């Protein structure tokens, strides 16, 4: 990946990310997030992860983000009202924490023993075949577990989002009055 492309993509990613965090309208936030995700997809492809990059675009942007959009429209959320006083502390600490994190991570980037460069990889690196081989051999159990996770998530989402109906609560089994009459005190 040429340097200029990286600089451009990086700047765009940071700007869009800030847009996600700072805009008041959720739909605008979402659009900014879409930009970040597509930006990153391009970077993935540039780093040789062609399959993952395309999947990023398809799954994230095509599926997940659309889901977000639906929910925002469903709930009819347009703008977020201004923050009231009292959570200033939260914002302050949030900013400080984020800054501290960035600082720390930068220390790593600077101080960590830098790899000499990118290693040479075969042309098939990152292809569907290569990924599939890893996925269905070494990561088979994780793959199965993930499929189970998705299933559970689907069921959970359905269960959570559907309207609660009255018929689900069962009344306790009543004791027949005859039993009490038979042996209980005849008072």
């Amino acid at each position, binding site marked *: *990946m*040429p*340097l200029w492309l*990286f600089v451009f993509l*990086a700047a765009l*990613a*940071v700007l869009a*990310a*800030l847009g*996600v*965090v700072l805009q008041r309208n*959720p739909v605008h*936030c*979402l659009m900014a*997030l879409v930009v*970040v995700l597509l930006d*990153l997809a391009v*970077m*993935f492809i540039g*780093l*040789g*992860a062609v399959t*993952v990059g395309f*999947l*990023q675009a398809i*799954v*994230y942007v095509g*599926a*997940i983000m659309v*889901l977000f959009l639906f*929910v*925002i429209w*469903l*709930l009819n*959320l347009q703008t*977020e009202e201004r923050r009231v006083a009292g959570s200033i502390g*939260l*914002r302050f600490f*949030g900013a400080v*924490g*984020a800054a501290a*994190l*960035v600082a720390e*991570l*930068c220390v790593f*980037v600077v101080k960590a023993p*830098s*790899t000499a*460069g*990118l*290693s040479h*990889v075969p042309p098939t*690196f*990152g292809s569907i075949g290569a*990924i599939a081989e*890893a996925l269905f051999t070494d*990561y088979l159990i994780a793959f199965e577990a993930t499929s189970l*996770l998705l299933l559970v998530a689907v069921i959970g989402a359905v269960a*959570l*989002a559907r309207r609660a109906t009255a018929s689900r609560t069962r009344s306790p089994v009543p004791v027949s009055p005859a039993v009490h009459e038979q042996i209980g005190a005849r008072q």
Partner: protein
Amino acid sequence: MMSVPPSWFMALGALLFAIGAAGVLIRRNVIVMLMAIELMLNAVNLTFIALSRSLGSIDGQVIVLFVITVAAAEAATGLAIIIAAFRNRETVNADELNLMRW
């Protein structure tokens, strides 16, 4: 062509991660908080991909696939919870959804 060192990618990842984290903290809207979390996940994904390339190992990419799947699951359940909560409370503000305390 490959003139950009991997550490730059990681620095970018760190920056995006921090922005995401800040977003989770300062936004009240739960949906936007969820988006910020997606942002954080992607920052991590970037790091994985960069290291995968740098080490010449496919593992990083596979893990990113898993992360995407988990993110999908998380988004689905998270949004379902938000819908359920909104139905009961008519709000998506995090500081008003605080029934889960002591």
